[in-house]
């Protein structure tokens, strides 16, 4: 019985346990300022993972986010001079549009999201390559600071990017738990047929979920582009699997309807801690990937809430 009560709390217990373990092994890890920096750095990943959460929450997946972010880094860099700060609006809209196209292909053309988003991602990659002329581009520093300097400042020791990330997470959490859309999302994720039978426009909910995923991916790409002060067609590579891992390790299973934004925040922090632990515990470079995989299996085994999974685990 206690097991059942504890279950929903396993993700953050896992997180705390990890932090304690790493901290005991190397007390330098227990540093507030160090932790703040680590968290600030994981923000683009967090934002991507939040977007991905919407796709996974309805039982789908969005494999296009990395390529969308790539495309956005290029767009931001190319159009910064022309549009100034409104380039942010532009790229987020474009990201949303791509997400909506993915959603459309998935729901109306019956292509599983695993394939549709992969393919839409390829299209975004093509655009990124074309727009960047297959070059690495960099931003004009003064323009960047004039328009997006606010993104990366510090106020009383709190990095702005952390604030932005937490605000977006809060917004997403609000959307997921407190709005009609969030409620519909939950219905679609946990009982699609019942949602249809209740008159919910399931297709629209799904398309919107993919749209959100695209918008968050675009915002992450924007932040990343500003942070790195440039863009090219593979700048955001490496985000995809990590974002999926962050969502899963937070306890949102691929079957949908369970978990959510809070879980993803915790999942992202778990990924962050595991990764930082590699540095803090001085894990041999060649062994890091293997150890990452093993820790991942253990972490997922701990965090996943099997009672909410369908009786069949596929």
């Amino acid at each position, binding site marked *: 019985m206690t097991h059942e009560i504890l279950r929903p709390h396993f993700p953050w217990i896992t997180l705390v346990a990890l932090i304690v373990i790493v901290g005991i092994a190397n007390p330098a890890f227990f540093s507030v300022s160090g932790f703040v920096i680590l968290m600030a750095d994981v923000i683009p990943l967090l934002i991507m993972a939040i977007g991905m959460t919407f796709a996974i929450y309805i039982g789908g997946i969005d494999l296009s986010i990395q390529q969308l972010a790539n495309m956005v880094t290029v767009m931001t860099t190319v159009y910064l001079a022309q549009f100034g700060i409104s380039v942010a609006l532009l790229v987020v809209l474009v990201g949303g549009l791509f997400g909506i196209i993915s959603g459309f292909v998935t729901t109306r053309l019956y292509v599983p999201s695993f394939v549709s988003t992969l393919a839409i991602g390829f299209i975004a990659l093509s655009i990124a390559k074309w727009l960047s002329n297959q070059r690495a581009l960099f931003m004009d520093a003064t323009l960047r600071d004039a328009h997006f300097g606010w993104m990366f400042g510090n106020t009383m020791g709190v990095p702005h990017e952390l604030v932005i990330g937490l605000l977006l997470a809060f917004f997403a959490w609000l959307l997921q738990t407190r709005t009609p859309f969030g409620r519909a999302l939950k219905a679609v994720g946990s009982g699609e047929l019942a949602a249809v039978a209740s008159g919910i426009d399931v297709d629209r909910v799904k398309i919107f979920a993919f749209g959100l995923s695209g918008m968050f991916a675009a915002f992450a790409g924007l932040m990343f582009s500003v942070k790195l002060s440039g863009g090219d067609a593979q700048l955001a590579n490496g985000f995809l699997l990590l974002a999926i891992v962050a969502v899963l390790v937070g306890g949102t*299973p691929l079957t949908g309807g369970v978990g959510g934004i809070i879980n993803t925040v915790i999942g992202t922090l778990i990924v962050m801690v595991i990764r930082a632990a590699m540095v803090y515990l001085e894990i041999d470079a060649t062994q890091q990937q293997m150890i990452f*995989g093993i820790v991942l*299996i253990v972490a*997922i085994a701990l965090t996943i809430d099997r009672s909410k999974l369908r009786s069949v685990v596929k």
Partner: protein
Amino acid sequence: MIRDIIVKWAPLLVLVFLVLLFPIFEWLEDFRAGKDHIYLLDSRFFSVRNASRIAVAATPGLMVAIGVTFIIIMGSIDLSMEGSVSISAVIFAFAFLALGGTLLSWAWLAIPAAMLVGAGIGFVNGLVHVVFRIPSFMVSLAMGFVGTGLALVLTGGDRIRIEDEVFRSLLTVRWLNFPIMCYVALLALLVAWFIQSHTTLGRNFYAIGGGEELAQASGLNVARIRVLGFALAGVFFALGALMAVGRIGIAETATGNNFMFISIAAVVVGGTALWGGIGGIPNTLVGILIVYVITNGMVVIGLPSWLQDGVLGVLVITAVVLSTSRKSISFVK
């Protein structure tokens, strides 16, 4: 009814369409340049030589896709292929060199050894999946990291060259214009098809994909079949590794790169449903050929490189749309 038949054969039709499409661009190009060009006959794309090139390029991917087909038929997914291929390739290469370095010595033992390694990774995959009740997506994704990581630890990042002429005859010796590796792949394909359609295990994959609880209630040992399925997939991943090494003569940590999305896309494009129970090995063959015909064709017709990814994306969606039976599914995620 007609719609059903079209859906069933759609992947093949798409393949035929693509094979006929690329020569049109070639014809157009020569026509513009004012050269004589008879459609298909003068096509460089539509030629035996190019068919063998596509076949050579596709064999490793085909093996990997066959492996994952079994898993997808069960309604699960296996994302460990990149790690499995890398570790199998690396262990094969080490064992091959350690045992004599030529196929005509005890080094041939490296081949079953590699397949055992693949089976082992798959076995662990399945075991963790079944015993800890973790969805296969997550287990296999993490196992993939472990596989690649292990390959890295073993090689320290070095590449291992396999120079043995006998082993490399897989690529260099041709029968009827096709290298031996194509025939080996064909043999593996037949074995896989045979397992799928003529053995209890293969049919049980379909049973699980069609309804796992029902299969369980019918007395099938679902857990055991799942674990066996993952192990079998691992064997084919290892075969993919052998083909990859045979093709370029190098085993390295990166040998497995890029197999994940290509193989799963190929399986789906071939008409096998991701939710299990539908499709099979012949579909996968068609699917992988579609993918490699597209990639080869795009280079052959001189499509700008930046455009190639996008065109691949559009064609993949088109192929899946055409081969999906809208009747049989109520919703898609």
